[in-house]
């Protein structure tokens, strides 16, 4: 069943074959896997890694750590004031030194959907790889890794009705074959034979994806993720996106009734998913979140692990409302009622 789960995930994101799916704990581990398995051996002084300023810390920190070890340069592409990617700046930063471009498909702060296909083409034209953080896209929209031509895609199970501690890394098979293992242990080897002559062990790696899955796998997690995908497919992932967009449009319209509320992100809702960052005049995002908590409404507050983007927005922190298939218009009405009360504080 564990391998059935791999097959299901592969089909869900239109991968060529299940061997292109590596089970990981989540998006963060997937990106770290690429950084350490591929980056550690392929990035050196003089090379460049391109990252955008809207990235989650999990798509910044591994590259910063590795940069200090290997001495390569990281270039940060600009984000416009409304949270959209500055494509001209991103594309202008590519050169023959660029080895990999790392970009989120959907911003976890603003919900902005990036044209990763466009960036992937520019990356490939420069001989660079394209890594996409799909944590906020795979659960919400149809993602076709072949059509988008991404080399790596990272995503998590817990954002798509699955449990925590399970996620997947998609990697093109020819890349996974060339990459060294991430962790050592059982399952990721074909053979470990002790040589009397050398007094050492000769080790041969397993084939991908098992080469990257040392130790006992999270079997329950993988199967649960498969069931979550089946459930999403039953609804249809395009219906999921449609539902979220309808809710987001309704929420934004109603939030504009609130005079002390400032909405962040692009005004054009067609550029974004069901994520709405906002601030309430005179209150910290944490006050806002704690207030909603009293009404049984959960929102996120703080930097959302994306401090550089908050620097772009010139915000100390932000509150974030987000929607999924289980949310309703009635819940948004309750949210607005609570928001109007918060304005009185």
């Amino acid at each position: 069943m564990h391998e059935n789960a791999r097959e299901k995930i592969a089909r869900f994101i239109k991968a060529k074959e299940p061997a292109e799916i590596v089970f990981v704990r989540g998006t963060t581990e997937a990106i770290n896997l690429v950084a350490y398995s591929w980056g550690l051996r392929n990035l050196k002084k003089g090379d460049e890694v391109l990252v955008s300023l809207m990235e989650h810390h999990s798509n910044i920190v591994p590259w910063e750590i590795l940069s200090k070890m290997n001495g390569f340069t990281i270039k940060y592409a600009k984000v416009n004031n409304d949270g959209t990617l500055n494509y001209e700046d991103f594309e202008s930063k590519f050169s023959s030194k660029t080895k990999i471009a790392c970009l989120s498909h959907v911003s976890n702060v603003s919900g902005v959907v990036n044209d990763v296909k466009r960036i992937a083409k520019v990356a490939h034209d420069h001989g660079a790889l394209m890594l996409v953080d799909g944590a906020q896209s795979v659960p919400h929209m149809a993602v076709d890794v072949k059509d988008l031509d991404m080399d790596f895609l990272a995503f998590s199970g817990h954002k798509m009705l699955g449990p925590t501690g399970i996620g997947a890394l998609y990697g093109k098979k020819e890349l996974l074959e060339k990459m060294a293992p991430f962790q050592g242990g059982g399952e990721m080897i074909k053979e470990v034979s002790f040589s009397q002559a050398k007094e050492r062990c000769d080790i041969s790696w397993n084939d991908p994806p098992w080469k990257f899955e040392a130790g006992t796998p999270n079997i329950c997690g993988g199967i649960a993720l498969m069931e979550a995908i089946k459930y999403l497919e039953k609804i249809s992932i395009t219906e999921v996106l449609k539902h979220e967009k309808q809710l987001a449009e309704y929420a934004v319209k109603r939030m504009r009734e609130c005079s002390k509320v400032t909405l962040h992100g692009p005004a054009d809702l067609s550029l974004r998913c069901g994520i709405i960052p906002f601030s309430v005049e005179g209150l910290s995002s944490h006050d806002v979140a704690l207030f909603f908590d009293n009404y049984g409404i959960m929102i996120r507050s703080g930097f959302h692990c994306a401090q550089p983007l908050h620097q772009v927005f010139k915000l100390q922190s932000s509150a974030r409302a987000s929607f999924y298939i289980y949310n309703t218009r009635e819940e948004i009405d309750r949210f607005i009622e609570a928001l109007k009360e918060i304005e009185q504080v």
Partner: protein
Amino acid sequence: MPSVEDYVARIEGTCGEEKDIIVVFKYDKKDEAIANILKKAQLKNSLSGIIFELAFRDISFRVYSSGKAIFRGIKSKEALNNILAALLL
């Protein structure tokens, strides 16, 4: 002899530049904790019995009926413990 730990489940720093501190009271002691605080701190504002905006010494803070409090301008863990001891015990 009661202690701060009898009332407090968790203390966490907020994520953001504000550097506020959130105190989460133990679920079964939250009503008692809030009642103690309201007796000792100066009530500046309240909203529907849900949020209490308070001041104590030179510290302003908010208490939420869900059992959380958010403090700002506290310089150290020791200073926070002193404030909590004075408010709760």
